[in-house]
């Protein structure tokens, strides 16, 4: 000790060369991925939308009416009030995504499910639900099995009788009114309750009624604006009312977020103003391949006339089938494995196999679907049901794994607390574990659906037709899907115009659908994380 100097001259240096090299290598890897993706997206989007074919005046007009005000207001808000800025952007995003979903829903109600059928089933479900509530309220002393049987009978009976009865009526209301009641009213009920939460019964009733009235106006406004009563009603109930309800509810609860609405107003106003201005000034827009015609027409031999409409509808129907099959099966398996199954060699064996199944190539699942459903069960090839079942098998392991992850993230203290209160395992799972894990389960399922929507190989294997000229109308009709249609354009109809026009346009539509599904999952996940 005594030999040490009293004053330290220099601490010396520790080499960081390796660390620095490592850090920049990682940065390079990250940048490579991002840049490659960005270049690919820009390349495809440029081919599909062709922004450079527009008049310079068109660009200038939108630059002045939309881009400049948006940047100015958005930048100002971000500096002074980031929470409001995020809120404003969320409203714009919600409107954009929900408008897209409204397009899909409108497609269903125009071409697949008659509004009267939908009305019949919603009415049947409502009546059945009311019957179940009455049974539960009326006598809790009835044995569980009796209540269960009565509730089951009410649901099955109502579903079996009422839709047929409604359809056999000689006169029924117009499509717009039926959709307002069967689609708009439930949406308005949910949105109104959210918007007026804590405002008392009168406030809630008022906001629900407002929602119904807005949806109802679609039946009048639709024909006036030349988009038809049904699409207008769907658009109002799926996109406009939820967005407005979200904005109104948030502003009512957090008055200081109000400036965010300015951002929303600038974006919407700028878009409308720009559209009116370019129309009035006669500037031509870009000759985009993704246009109204592409979205609403079927395949054609000439690239310029080819459209994606039947494939979009097919993808929607496939996704509905896949979700209906894989969600209950996957979540059920996950809950069993996570909450009930003992930890032994057999369950560990199953664990490993589920993980392996998640990595099996999709073409193998296609073969499985062909072998099981078509060859063994003798189903016709290429139907919505077969395609949906095959894709559901494909994503089932992913759904199980992500649902288990969500269940595992529920802290064990919650379960302990519930058991400590004298809850049974079923009560604990129903009241504590599932509500807490549900957003995570939903996020995982949506991301898995995102994988299913982009699959081509299984659909080819089960014999889905490459080209379809009309929307599938039921579970047993032939189905095509967006990636299959794009594949057909790129292989069967391979020619310069298809490569340059239809293929990129199809890819862009597919990507937009995929990204908006994922954005829903991301929003859910963020909301979930904030709550913890």
């Amino acid at each position, binding site marked *: 000790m005594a030999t040490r100097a009293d004053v330290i001259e220099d601490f010396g240096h520790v080499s960081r060369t390796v660390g620095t090299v490592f850090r920049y290598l990682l940065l390079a890897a990250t940048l490579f991925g991002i840049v490659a993706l960005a270049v690919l997206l820009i390349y495809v989007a440029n081919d599909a939308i062709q922004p450079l074919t527009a008049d310079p005046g068109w660009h200038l007009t939108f630059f002045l009416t939309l881009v400049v005000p948006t940047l100015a207001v958005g930048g100002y808000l971000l500096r002074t009030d980031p929470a409001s800025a995020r809120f404003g952007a969320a409203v714009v995003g919600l409107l954009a995504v929900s408008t897209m979903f409204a397009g899909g829903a409108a497609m269903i109600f125009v071409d697949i499910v008659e509004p009267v059928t939908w009305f019949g089933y919603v009415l049947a479900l409502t009546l059945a639900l009311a019957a179940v509530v009455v049974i539960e309220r009326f006598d809790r002393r009835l044995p569980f099995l009796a209540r269960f049987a009565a509730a089951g009978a009410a649901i099955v009976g109502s579903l079996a009788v009422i839709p047929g009865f409604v359809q056999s009526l000689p006169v029924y209301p117009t499509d717009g009114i039926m959709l307002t009641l069967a689609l708009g009213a439930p949406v308005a009920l949910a949105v109104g309750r959210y918007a007026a939460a804590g405002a008392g019964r009168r406030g809630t009733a008022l906001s629900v009624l407002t929602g119904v009235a807005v949806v109802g106006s679609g039946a009048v406004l639709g024909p006036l604006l030349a988009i038809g009563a049904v699409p207008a009603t769907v658009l109002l109930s799926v996109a406009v009312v939820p967005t407005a309800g979200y904005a109104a509810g948030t502003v009512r609860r957090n008055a200081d977020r109000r400036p965010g609405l300015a951002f929303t107003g600038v974006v919407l106003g700028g878009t409308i103003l720009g559209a009116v201005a370019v129309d009035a000034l006669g500037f031509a827009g870009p000759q985009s391949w993704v246009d109204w015609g592409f979205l609403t027409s079927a395949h054609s031999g000439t690239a310029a006339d080819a459209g994606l409409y039947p494939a979009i509808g097919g993808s929607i129907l496939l996704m509905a089938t896949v979700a209906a099959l894989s969600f209950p099966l996957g979540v059920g398996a996950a809950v069993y494995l996570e909450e009930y199954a003992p930890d032994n060699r057999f369950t560990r064996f199953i664990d490993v196999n589920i993980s392996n199944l998640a990595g099996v190539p999709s073409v193998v699942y296609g073969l499985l679907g062909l072998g099981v459903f078509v060859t063994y069960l003798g189903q016709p090839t290429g139907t919505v049901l077969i395609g949906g079942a095959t894709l559901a098998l494909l994503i089932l392991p992913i759904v199980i794994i992500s649902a288990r992850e969500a269940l595992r993230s529920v802290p064990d*203290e919650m379960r302990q607390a519930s*058991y*400590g209160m004298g*809850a049974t395992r079923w009560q604990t799972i129903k*009241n504590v574990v599932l509500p807490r894990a549900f957003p995570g389960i939903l996020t995982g399922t949506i991301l898995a659906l995102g994988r299913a929507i982009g699959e081509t190989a299984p659909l080819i294997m089960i014999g889905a037709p490459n080209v379809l000229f009309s929307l599938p109308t039921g579970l047993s009709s032939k189905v095509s899907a967006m990636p299959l249609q794009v594949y057909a354009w790129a292989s069967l109809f391979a020619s310069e115009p298809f490569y340059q026009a239809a293929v990129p346009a199809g890819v862009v539509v597919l990507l937009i659908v995929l990204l908006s599904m994922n954005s829903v999952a991301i929003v859910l996940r963020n909301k979930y994380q904030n*709550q913890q």
Partner: protein
Amino acid sequence: MTDSQEYASGESTDDPTSDDMSIETDVSESVSSSPTMHSNTVVSAENVDVWYNDEQALQDITLDIPENQVTAMIGPSGCGKSTFLRCINRMNDLIDAARVEGDLYLRGKNVYDDDVDPVALRRRVGMVFQSPNPFPKSIYDNVAYGLKIQNKEGDYDDIVEESLKRAALWDEVKDQLDQSGLELSGGQQQRLCIARAIAPDPEVILMDEPASALDPVATSQIEDLITELAEEYTVVIVTHNMQQAARISNKTAVFLTGGELVEFDDTEKIFENPESQRVEDYITGKFG
């Protein structure tokens, strides 16, 4: 399930504090002979052993926990005091490796009898855990949880209000019953957990180091609350804080390493004049 309902409903009409439910054991007779010292025995352990796999966590525990008093369990980490607490409401059943032997009576009924449904048992025993663990539900739903799952009769609004008042939380949350229980501070969350535990009116309240995750102010609030609760409930509390045990408990059990109950007596006696040298060493801080 039917057994549990019978067990739960068959006796729920009885007044839980009525004397005819007390058991005729040596202890309760000796209690009746010296009424100034003790009231009735609520929980009575006889030769309880607990193993985790092959490792013995509790050795031959015998003790009687009196009614409407605070009984503290103290001892160094790993001495088995929490394990004993979890024997009372059979939470150890949830751990596959745990095995319990011996007899443990709750108001005269051996909770390890074959016909006892642990779920029905836990409905009569409230439990508060080490770290506050309210459900991610509203404050109201947290307190009403036990009532709902047990299908209790009565006006839930009144019971929730009464429980929150007893847990000294009502004044702070009465305007925000719809708010999530997770938005409260740590001390408030723990009082919410206490309100949740007392809402179904249990026979005993078990507390597993209820203040160890809290700051001194919240700790002192919880301690005051425990003292008040003991007027109506039998409280068993595990703590590693000896001063806390000395402040709030009427009786103290000292567990030492190896899962041994070294001494169990009135708190004053334990802290002022313990029989065992080891207990004195532990209390005066010579080890542990």
